[in-house]
């Protein structure tokens, strides 16, 4: 590391990222563990260190409506939230994506009730998977600041909102060295935001009117899309964002010297006899588990999924093509089925001839501690089960299951 390195929490890193992007409107409602992100920004705005409007509202639903309105008229917009706050935004998350607004939101991952928990898992953002937002999962505080900056460039190029997700407390409240990028270089990297639709009193229009199932000719005779055509455009944009995300990550690496891997990253994967997969800090933890396993003679590697939507279909196929076994650890559960990441990985491999056994561990829900040694032990148990012919396993780690 070089330049301006400071020891800071993940929440500070997120706030610095937003500041470097010169966000113009921030709206937020406090919720643990995300509060200090926007608290830090509020301080800067009050002191005049960040020229922006800070809009205080009564709920997260209103937060996202403010973000939608401000982004529509051309402001660069930021917010952050967690858990129930994100769930309360749910309807407006759909609205932001459907309106194709490049809003950036930091989701500081926290479990959801009932029962109450303030501690970390990824159920909150996974529950927003199908809202049309791009989702990036960070593994350390440096990646948070870098991903927020990248998120604006991605969002404003493809006109889709981006959720930068990172684990509550594990990253949000843990101090790490973080290099703060140079302001001028960030300005070079991130061109000004140009809204896709200019609102002008001389050319009035109604944005998001009722739209019909069918295409329809407007009063000027132009054939306008129906609902489904509009929704296809959103899906197409998410699919297309893949290349933009990869290119943005590469450009960022060229300018700032840090490459976070684009869609996913690998650790000691080349000769691996077992690959551990995960998202966010549990994937970081898994790298230590891989080291422990290798010390014990088991050639383990890690594949960290960085971007969950759009899902890195091709990269996942490449990553697991030669893996004799895959173990997925994840901090979410699609109740009645399995972990969302595991299900998506399996779906990506369907029909490719990749036939590695895939085991799934639900881990760390509601902040339950997961040690590298425990991950390593779980992998060892999985390999033994696979050797015994058990191709599928779906279980919970460090949990009373009997």
């Amino acid at each position: 590391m070089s330049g301006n390195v400071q020891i800071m929490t993940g929440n500070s890193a997120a706030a610095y990222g937003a500041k470097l992007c010169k966000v113009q409107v921030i709206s937020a409602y406090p919720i643990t563990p995300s509060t200090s992100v926007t608290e830090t920004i509020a301080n800067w705005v009050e002191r005049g260190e960040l020229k922006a409007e800070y809009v205080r509202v009564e709920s997260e639903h209103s937060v996202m409506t403010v973000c939608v309105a401000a982004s529509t008229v051309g402001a660069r917009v930021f917010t952050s939230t967690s858990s129930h706050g994100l769930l309360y935004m749910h309807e407006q998350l759909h609205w932001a994506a459907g309106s194709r607004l490049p809003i950036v939101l930091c989701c500081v991952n926290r479990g959801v009730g009932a029962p109450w928990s303030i501690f970390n898992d990824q159920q909150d953002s996974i529950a927003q998977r199908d809202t049309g937002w791009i989702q990036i999962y960070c593994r350390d505080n440096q990646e948070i600041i870098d991903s927020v900056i990248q998120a604006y460039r991605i969002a404003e190029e493809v006109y889709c909102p981006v959720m930068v997700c990172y684990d509550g407390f594990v990253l949000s409240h843990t101090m790490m060295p973080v290099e703060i990028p140079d302001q001028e270089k960030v300005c070079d990297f991130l061109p000004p935001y140009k809204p896709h639709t200019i609102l002008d009193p001389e050319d009035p229009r109604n944005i998001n009117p009722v739209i019909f199932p069918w295409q329809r000719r407007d009063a000027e005779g132009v054939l306008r899309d129906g609902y489904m055509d509009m929704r296809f455009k959103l899906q197409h944009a998410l699919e297309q964002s893949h290349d933009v995300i990869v290119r943005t990550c590469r450009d960022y690496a060229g300018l700032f010297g840090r490459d976070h891997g684009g869609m996913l990253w690998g650790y000691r994967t080349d000769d691996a006899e077992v690959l551990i997969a995960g998202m966010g800090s549990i994937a970081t933890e898994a790298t230590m588990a891989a080291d422990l396993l290798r010390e014990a003679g088991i050639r383990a590697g890690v594949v960290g999924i960085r971007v969950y939507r759009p899902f890195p279909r091709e990269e996942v196929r490449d990553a697991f093509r030669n893996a004799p076994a895959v173990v997925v650890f994840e901090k979410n559960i699609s109740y009645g089925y399995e972990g969302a990441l595991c299900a998506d990985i399996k779906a990506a491999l369907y029909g490719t001839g990749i036939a590695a056994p895939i085991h799934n561990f639900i881990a760390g829900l509601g902040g339950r501690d997961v040690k590298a040694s425990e991950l390593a032990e779980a992998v060892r148990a999985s390999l033994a089960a696979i050797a015994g012919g058990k191709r599928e396993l779906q279980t919970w780690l460090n949990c009373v299951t009997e």
Partner: protein
Amino acid sequence: MEAKDDNISAMCKPAVGEAGKTGDWRDATPVIDRAKCIASVKNRAACYLCWLYCPEGIVTAGIPVEIDLTYCKGCGICAEECPAKAITMVMHEEGGK
């Protein structure tokens, strides 16, 4: 091939008929009795509560008052508000206009 809609989010511009010929929706038609309508009786600009209350903006405040049946949805608010009871909503027959 017709040009594609280049908007990436749905929008429309304020224009007559932007929502289509909404007169199709009507199952009752307002009929004005000029012998009762205050503007017609007094032969000057008067009352025009029908024009004021019409949610579709399709009543013309003239002498006589006119209703644009191409867009009138037949809601009956004009008949409800008319102080002279000059407007009657005539129900359409089943299946007819």
